[in-house]
Every structure is written in C-alpha cells, then in structure tokens.
C-alpha cells in the first residue's frame, strides 16, 4: 500500500518527509539546531548532510541539547530547535523540556519515532514520547500522516513562541520521514483554537493607573514575562518606572528587564532577595506585578504575603492570575503592550499623584537599603564566593565586551543573581522554575553559538557542573570559548545550608567527595584549566580566563561554609528574613509547616 501511495504522489510536488521538515525549519528562520543522531532520525541527518542553510551542533547528551536551545532562545528571542532520536533520545530530553516549560522558553523539539506500523509493539527504541512529554510540554504532536507534516512543524513554531512561550515536541515516525510529503507554506496556516490575547483591556489599565496614582507606597514587581515580550518591553518598563518614580524589583527570571544600576532598582526579591525589596513588597499599599507569577520562592508564606496591598497583575497567561494570590486588578495581555498602554494612560489620566507620601515611602526604602544586606567581609586568604562573583562582574564590565551569564543551581546561582548586575534583558540565563543542576554549561553553549564574539560565562558549582560536564567536548569541537567559573566550596552548598538550618547540621550526603581535578579535566577536554586557591590569585585567574580565546574552566576554591543571605526560610513571611549567620543561630522561625516545604 505504501508503494501505491509513493507512486501516486510522485507526480505532484512532493519530497521525502525529512526534506519537508528541513524546508519548514528554514521557512521558520531556523539557522541552527542542537541534536544527537540515532536510527529513527537518520533520514533527517541525511537531509542535513546535503544542505548548508541549517547548522547542526552535535551535543554529548540530549538533555544538553534542550538546555542549549534554551540558551539560544533566551539570548536571541528566537525559538530554539532540538533534534533527537526515538526512545532514549527522547527520554533524555525530558528534563530539558520541563525546564523550558517552567521558565516559559520557546523550544521546538523534533523526536524520532519508530515507523507508524510498529507503534505500540514495543519496537526497538520505542517510547510513548507524546505520552511521556504531554505534561512536559506546552503542546505535542505525533505526525501519523504525511499530509500533516509541514503544517504540524509550522504549528509547533507558532505554539512555541505565541502567548506564554514554551516547549513543543513533534514526534516523527521514521516512515513519515522517508515517504514523500507535500509542502505547505507557513503563511497558509492559521491556528484553529489557539489565539492568545495580546492587547490589555483599556478599562483595567485605567483602573490600574488610578490605583497606582493614588498609592502612597507603590511597588513594581517585574518578571520573566517582560523579557519574553522582547527588548522593547524592557525599554517600556524603564520608561514607566521613570515616569512614575516608583521603586522596581525583579524576580530571578526578570533580572535584566530593569537596569540593575538604576537608582530606582531595589534588587531581586524573594527567598534570597534583598532586604529592601522584600520589605517594600511586605509594606506596599499597591503592587503592580508585570510578567511574574507569584511563585512560592517570591511570596514566602502566602497568608502573610504583602498583607495590606491592592494587587494588580498583568500576565499573558490567564491561568497565572488568581492562582496563588487573589488580585484586585487582573490584566490579561502581552507585557510590552500592557506597559505601552499603562504609559499612555498615566500621561492622560488626571488623577493627581500622591507625591508627598511617596517621598516618605522612598525614605523608608532608603533606611532599608542602609542595612546593606548584601555586604560581606573579604579578609584573609580564603576567597569569599560573593567576592569572586563581584570581581567577575567588575572585571568583565571593565572589558566592555558584551557579556552573557548562565548558572547552574545552588548557592552560586543566588550569589550570581545578587552580585552580578544586569542592565539589559536576555543576558542572564538561569533555571528558575525547575532549578535544574546541569543547566548552565549547555545553556552557555547555546548562547555562544548565537553570539560567537560575546563573552559567555557559566557561573557554576562543583557539584552541578558534573551533571553536564560532557559538553566540554562540544565546546572543543565547535571552538566555543565558553568560560566555566566554578565556585568550588566542596559541598552541595545549598543542600548543606538547608541541613544546617533545618536538620541540626547533619550533613547527610552533601559533601562533594572525590572531586575531579578540574584543571586536569579542562586539559583532557582541550580547554584551559585555571585555579585560584587564595584571594590574591583571584583577579589574575579572572584576567587570564577573560583573555583566553578558547574555552576555560576556572576552579575558584572558595570558603566551604559560607551561606547565602538574606534568606526567607520556607514558611516564613517577607518581614521574617534571616540577614546573616548570627541571626541564623537563634532563628527558630521555621515552623512545622515550613519544614514540609521545599
């Protein structure tokens, strides 16, 4: 029967499925894909071999392919593309997909599948990929008919980048990749059911503006949605913050959407946020949340979250609104369009601004700032991790080069967020929602592919880096000069910190035993290895790392027992922050309810 199909279609303008897939990718503007071959996707690899428009980056593990695509997407605003084989190729990609789902990153992941007639037979390297990835993606497809192939690929891109972005899987049985299939242009396709609302409701905008104008203690809390809405949205955010004179704080995902160097910036908020940001959230009377989702890392104990404020929440995803926190003014729409509308309305609306009260509010904020919650003392030979990040920040800034920072997950991630200042969007890549150790190196790799001349640095922990260390091989193969800056405290520091705080300092399985020699490891992967063990070596190592034209691992041996502060312990409120080690000792603030939280 398949022979009959092939001969009957040979006369029309049909090409093998694999070629149709590549043509659709090209039409979607794809210039690079991150992938790993295998039996089920060999037809696509064969088609790739015979063209030059799309570059393929061969990773060393499929999870890394997805993180690389995320790094690519977050630094360019484009959709990241992944190609993996069936079975283990697809299952290896799952962590990356969930990571992209949690952080709303547009990724299209093409997975190979056994031929349609074998699906359900437990064939070699068969996995129920659409079943496994259903809750791991924004949407997924299994292409069972050649005539659907081109449309589905185009649709996948549309779904991945529209509304709240996310990962989309397209599962491609091998026979579909071989059989001739018709091509359909992207412009010929409209989506039947998925049409997200972009423009905010003007009545809500006016309500929001009036609340904000009358507010005596306002705050703007901006998240990753502003970054996802494109650089113009970040520009509009700065314009709105300056126009209104209000303080602004960012979530971990939102860093860079408002310039860190701006005097109206209060720093990051949440579990490891600044004293001033968290107290301003606690004490405000009107809060504008734009493009953030009242995540539990942000709110702390819900019933004590910003107890006396009116809340305005602008989000492109209606399901984010009223999910964790009941709000007073919901605004559904794109962050950029919402900010533009807020600016317009602010200029037109005659409501007088509560100026004198807002001056008092800034006085309180300045008092909180005077606490200098991020101060640390670098004394003696032992390198403080905070100091290492601060020097890295200052020295990269001094080079004047465009700099992108990714991180792994743990204390180093929080120190990077606290001490590296981001003045522009799309330059900070971290795994926020899923908290995936092993994210940073492949993400930096994806960024470097998109920005070959930029400085791409993964601020890493010695434990996390081992989770995708194999990607050093990819760096070598493609001469990607990524710098891996390890804050090596010989502990899964964040785990140790929680054990100290919640489990009587019983450091169960959190010591990084039998670590490799990272300098030799770098050497083995054809990269440069550097090490700093004392404070006086730090600047030299950073200088050498920045100057080296190829990939580098810099092993920065830092204080082993440093903890990350300020900290809102789980189950606590914003005004119950632990500021430093002295307070930690007598902090009994973690309740039984708090103990069960992560």
């Amino acid at each position, binding site marked *: 029967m398949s022979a009959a199909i092939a001969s009957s279609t040979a006369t029309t303008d049909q090409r093998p499925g694999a070629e149709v897939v590549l043509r659709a990718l090209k039409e979607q503007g794809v210039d690079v894909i991150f992938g790993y071959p295998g039996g089920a996707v060999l037809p696509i690899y064969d088609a790739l071999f015979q063209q030059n428009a799309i570059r393929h980056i061969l990773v060393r593990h499929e999870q890394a392919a997805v993180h690389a695509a995320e790094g690519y997407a977050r630094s360019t605003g484009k959709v990241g593309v992944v190609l993996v084989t069936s079975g283990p190729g697809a299952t290896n990609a799952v962590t990356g997909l969930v990571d992209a789902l949690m952080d709303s990153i547009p990724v299209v992941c093409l997975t190979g599948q056994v031929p349609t007639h074998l699906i359900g037979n437990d064939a070699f390297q068969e996995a129920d990929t659409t079943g496994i990835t259903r809750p791991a993606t924004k*949407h997924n497809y299994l292409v069972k008919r050649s005539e659907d192939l081109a449309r589905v690929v185009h649709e996948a891109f549309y779904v991945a980048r529209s509304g709240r972005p996310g990962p989309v899987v397209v599962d491609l049985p091998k026979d579909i990749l071989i059989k001739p299939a018709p091509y359909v242009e992207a412009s010929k396709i409209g989506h*039947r059911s998925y049409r997200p609302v972009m423009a905010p409701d003007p009545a809500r905008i006016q309500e929001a503006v009036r609340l904000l104008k009358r507010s005596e203690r306002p705050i703007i809390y901006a998240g990753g949605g502003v970054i996802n809405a494109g650089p113009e949205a970040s520009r509009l955010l700065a314009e709105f913050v300056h126009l209104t004179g209000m303080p602004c704080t960012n979530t971990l995902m939102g860093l860079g959407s408002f310039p860190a160097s701006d005097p109206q910036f209060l720093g990051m908020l949440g579990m490891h946020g600044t004293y001033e940001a968290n107290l301003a959230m606690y004490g405000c009377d009107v809060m504008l949340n734009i493009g953030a989702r009242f995540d539990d890392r942000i709110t702390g104990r819900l019933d004590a979250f910003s107890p006396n404020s009116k809340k305005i929440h602008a989000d492109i995803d209606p*399901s984010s609104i009223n999910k964790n926190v*009941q709000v007073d003014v919901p605004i559904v729409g794109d962050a950029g369009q919402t900010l533009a509308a807020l600016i317009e309305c602010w200029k037109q609306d005659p409501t007088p601004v509560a100026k004198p009260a807002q001056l008092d509010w800034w006085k309180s904020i300045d008092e909180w700032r005077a606490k200098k919650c991020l101060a640390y003392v670098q004394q003696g030979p032992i390198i403080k991790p905070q100091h290492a990040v601060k020097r890295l920040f200052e020295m990269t800034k001094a080079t004047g080069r465009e700099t992108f920072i990714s991180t792994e997950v743990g204390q180093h991630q929080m120190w990077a967020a606290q001490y590296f200042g981001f003045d522009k969007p799309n330059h900070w890549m971290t795994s926020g929602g899923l908290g995936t150790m092993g994210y940073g190196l492949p993400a930096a790799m994806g960024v470097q592919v998109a920005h070959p001349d930029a400085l791409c640095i993964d601020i890493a922990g010695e434990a996390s880096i081992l989770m995708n260390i194999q990607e050093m091989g990819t760096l070598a193969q493609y001469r990607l000069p990524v710098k891996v800056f390890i804050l090596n405290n010989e502990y899964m520091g964040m785990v140790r910190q929680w054990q100290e705080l919640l489990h009587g300092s019983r450091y169960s399985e959190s010591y990084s035993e039998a670590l490799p020699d990272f300098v030799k490891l770098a050497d083995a992967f054809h990269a440069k290895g550097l090490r700093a063990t004392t404070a006086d070596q730090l600047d030299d190592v950073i200088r050498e790392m920045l100057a080296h034209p190829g990939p580098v691992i810099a092993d920065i041996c830092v204080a082993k027992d440093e903890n990350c502060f300020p900290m809102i312990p789980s189950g606590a409120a914003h005004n119950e922050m632990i500021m430093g080690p002295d307070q930690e000792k007598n902090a009994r603030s973690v309740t039984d309810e708090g103990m069960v939280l992560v």
Partner: protein
Amino acid sequence: MSDSNVRTATIAVLVENEAGILARVVGLFSGRGYNIEILTVAPVDEEKRLSRITVVTTGTDMVIEQIKAQLDRLVPVHRVNDLSLAGPHLVRELALIKVIGQGDHRVEALRLADAFRARVVDATTESFVFEMTGDAEKIDAFCALMRPLGLAEICRTGAVAIARGTLHMAA
C-alpha cells in the same frame, strides 16, 4: 479553606477532536490534583472536527476559576463554559439498569419503572433492563428503589449539560 466555599461546577469544553485530547484533559486534572466527579466526551461536529467534553468538578471558587483557566490554556481547546455560573441549564444522563427477580418483585419493579418513566429495553422471564434519562438524583433514587427488588447491574453515561434559552456555545 472551609468547606462552605466549595461548590460544584458543571463545565462544558469544546475541543478539537484529535488524538490525545482526552488524555490532556484527564492529565491536567490528575497532575494538578483537581477533582473529577464526572467526565463525558463525544464528537459533536464531524465536519469541523469538534468534540464536547462535560466535566463536573468540585472546589472553591478560586480552584474552579483555575480549572477553567487551565483548560482554556490547552492548545486544542476552543471554548470553556461554566454552565453553573452561566445561568439555568439542563443536565441529563442515561442509565441502563438490570434487575433480576421473580414474582411480586417483578411486578413492583415494573410499577416503579413506570412511575419514573424508565423504559423496558430488554426482558426475560427473570430479568429486565430499564433505560432511563434524567439528572443524577432521579437515577440515584430509582436505583435505590430497585436494590431490594433484585438490582444486578447499573451502567451510567455520566452527565451532559447545556444552557437553557438562546445562550449557546460555538467554536
């Protein structure tokens, strides 16, 4: 949250009639820990490839609003309509009920079936199969009455629901 805030919602969902759609809806409820009391689905427009799902669920207002938003977020979902909020609506389900018995029990079963407007759709000398439509309470009540009379088997479709009047749902 106190139980007094918990309500029952009957939600109609118009979806693309495509592979995996039911798994998506069911997975959403189980993955996010929502209740499903009843879930029914069938194609309603072959030409436009649309199916209609009826879900009956319970939760606080905040949870039910969340359920609706989450359903609406699924890519193949066209429309989500909370019939319980939209106004007066009809809820019906169909049941097939097998009663096995003899003598007086048979007579009594037939008499009650008549009162409930249940139809006999199969009969032997020892059994009846009754068919009835109605809301859940009516079917519950009928089944309770049949229990001492030889109730052997019940199958029910689960509810389908539609708004009264001109209000209607289209893709």
